[in-house]
């Protein structure tokens, strides 16, 4: 028994060590290939770039925790971005615009959540459909054209440019959201309910958990976080771009599943590490002027590797050691 316990702990530490080694190896490889990579400015750049992916991936973590998938968030974030930009062009105060965008994101999440949680529609297909509706609707604001009106004067760009003690505001927002999410998902009663549903929906139901409600909430959080990611992109680009969110899908899933592979469950810290890792890879390739499709390709590869390792590592390591032990016994 004692041995078994020690074995499992070391297995978990093992994956964390592997990840750290991999992380450092990638970091130093890029640093050697490009002297700008390890500069303070670039690291802040990476963090800024991380903030968009990391926030959207954080929302997705909640959906993955209840063992569902949301393929609508990156498209609904396009809608939120366009709504914000459109309201800014109309001369509304940026705070109002941002709130409206976030509410819209939550609403799209609510629609997905009700479809999946209440009506029990298949999650992937229905969220693709709902997301596509959101993406279609995003075109309505300007027939798909960029919206620049009022952007420099409205002050929304300061969301991107502002710094607090030298740290860019998007990074601060990201850290704040991660702290909140950590408290909710890992420490609170509600987090327990998310994980319980993800691990055994029926047993959670028989434990008096309102399963449907929690599933709906997870989608609402995902939609809301995607809108916040859209908010940062919009502020950074200084315009409303209907395609702004389309690059989020793959990095967000990669971030969540890399975290899942490292910690053996979808977790807030895991998603953060996953997001930093994927963004670092993307940024490194960008600095080397590698075309974007190569970095997309690498991120997608990372996702597959993450899924593979979370499925196989523990069981195969366990089997190997058991088999080795068995042989040793036989030899005696």
């Amino acid at each position, binding site marked *: *028994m*004692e*041995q*078994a*316990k020690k*074995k499992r702990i070391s297995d978990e530490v093992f994956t964390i060590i592997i990840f750290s080694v991999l992380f450092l190896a990638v970091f130093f490889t890029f640093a050697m290939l490009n002297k700008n990579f390890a500069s303070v400015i670039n690291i802040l750049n990476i963090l800024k770039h991380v903030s968009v992916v990391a926030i959207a991936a954080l929302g997705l973590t909640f959906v993955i925790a209840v063992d569902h998938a949301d393929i609508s968030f990156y498209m609904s974030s396009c809608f939120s971005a366009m709504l914000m930009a459109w309201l800014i062009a109309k001369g509304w105060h940026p705070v109002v615009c941002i709130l409206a965008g976030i509410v819209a994101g939550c609403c799209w999440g609510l629609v997905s959540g009700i479809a999946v949680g209440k009506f029990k529609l298949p999650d992937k297909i229905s969220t693709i459909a709902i997301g596509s509706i959101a993406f279609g609707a995003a075109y309505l604001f300007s027939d798909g054209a960029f919206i620049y009106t009022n952007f420099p004067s409205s002050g929304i760009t300061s969301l991107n440019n502002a710094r607090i003690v030298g740290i860019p505001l998007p990074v601060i927002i990201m850290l704040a959201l991660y702290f909140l999410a950590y*408290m909710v998902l890992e*420490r*609170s*009663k*509600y*987090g*327990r*309910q998310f*994980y*319980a549903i993800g*691990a*055994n929906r*029926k*047993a*959670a*139901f*028989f*434990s*008096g*958990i*309102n399963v449907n409600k929690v599933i709906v909430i997870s989608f609402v959080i995902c939609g809301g976080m995607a809108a916040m990611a859209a908010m940062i992109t919009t502020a950074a680009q200084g315009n409303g771009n209907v395609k702004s969110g389309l690059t989020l899908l793959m990095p967000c899933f990669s971030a969540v599943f890399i975290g899942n592979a490292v910690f053996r469950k979808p977790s807030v810290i895991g998603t953060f590490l996953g997001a930093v890792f994927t963004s670092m890879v993307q940024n490194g390739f960008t600095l080397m002027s590698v075309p974007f499709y190569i970095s997309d390709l690498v991120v997608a590869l990372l996702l597959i590797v993450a899924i593979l390792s979370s499925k196989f590592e523990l069981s195969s390591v366990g089997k190997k050691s*058991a*088999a080795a*032990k*068995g*042989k040793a*016994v*036989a030899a005696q």
Partner: protein
Amino acid sequence: MSEYRLEMKGIVKEFLSMRALDNAEFRLKAGEVHALLGINGAGKSTLIKVLSGVYIKDAGEILIDGEKVSINSPADAIKAGISTVYQDPQVIPSFTGYENIYLGSENDKKNVLSPMSRKELRQKAIELLKEFPLDVDLDKPVYMLSAIEKEIIAVLRALSKRTNILILDEPTSILTEKEKQILFDLVRLLKSKGVSIIYITHHLDEVSEICDAMTVFRNGQTVAQLPVEQGKVNSELIAELMLGKKLVQLYPHKAEKPGTDVLFEAQDLNLEGKFEHISFQAKKGEIYGIFGLVGSGIDEISKVLFGAMYKSSGQLVVHGKPLELKSTAHAIKSGIYLVPGDRKAEGQIGGLPIATNITLAKLQRVINKLGLVLRKKENSYAEDMVKQLAIATPSIKKKVGELSGGNQQKVVIGKGLFTEADIYIFTEPTVGVDVGAKSGIYEIMRQLSKDAAVIIISSDCEEVLGMADRVQVIYKGKCTFRSAAKDTTLSQMLVHAVTADAPSEQAV
């Protein structure tokens, strides 16, 4: 030619530091039905998995017809003529019977494009049926078939692979009484065709009915190999062999005096198509028992009582007040807790630790004002519960799925105790629980009944009669019998569970 179809000698299998099989021996003659007996964890399923190539043995040898064979994978086992039919036969529901029988062995050609002829398969299946005349419609999709017909399909699948050693793993666990007889006929037929059968079961009456010999396991070792003479088994001796000590009194003493306050009352409950006119009172200080066979509606009754399913009509009265249960959360808030019938799917969250499982149904007790879980408090509650229920585990951090069946069930019960309910409903509380842990769970239930109303709902007749102070029997969703347990015999209960027309006795 050896005397034995199959010999297993000195089989050893270790998992980490535990010896699941320790020099186990097993011998099987041709055309013999041989029972494997032993409490859970005695090593019988490990032996079967070694034989069927699921596990690779660490030491020992396997001989078939006197010749040594090496079985390192399920494919090796099938090649050696060994097939297993598991408890819940794995079939593809939308495929027909004959498609299921030949699944994966449709034809011998390696070419992907070589067509599979349904006609040919069907013809082959019909010929198989000629050899083994069984009453089953192979043209129907399997989801339309009953449990026993699915089992027959699974057996036919095994037979189609020239099986001469067939392993039946608790084949009666999902069958009704009537279906059991069909299965026994099937076993006799196979025997007459020279197939050797290894029959794993918990029920000694089945052993006396159809087995020729039996092997008893305890702690991974073979403790006895006995013939079944003239269909008789010495159940006391077997129980002693299985437990290794005198059989302890399984059921605790009944309540000394009748229950006092009526905490829970069902008045004329109906659920369309499932059950009707169900009424009873559960009192503090005693255990109320509801017995019915699988499929009689007892599982649905338990779910309606807990708000997990909605009744069509009727009334629940809880603590003297009418109560409309809106959800399971509402039930728990009202002091009701259900230990669900399907522990793995409904009761426990196997992938989460013991502590998390125990507090899950009433997290309010371990959170602060911000809704954050206080881990120290949670852990100390969980430690207490582990001690109180004597859950055998090295740590409360251990995942529930890694515990034995009995300890898993105790965790599910602990989750209920943590809600501080005063109405406990136990559905099939000891399915997949070994004899030792069973008596522990029964003792917990009796203890609970001192301050709470306890309801046991089960398809195990002995268990209901052994535990309850008052009982009712359900047949096809209707109550056919109710009485005080002390005035009732097992056969009385059973007869009312299989027919609605039993001669009516004095009802209490």
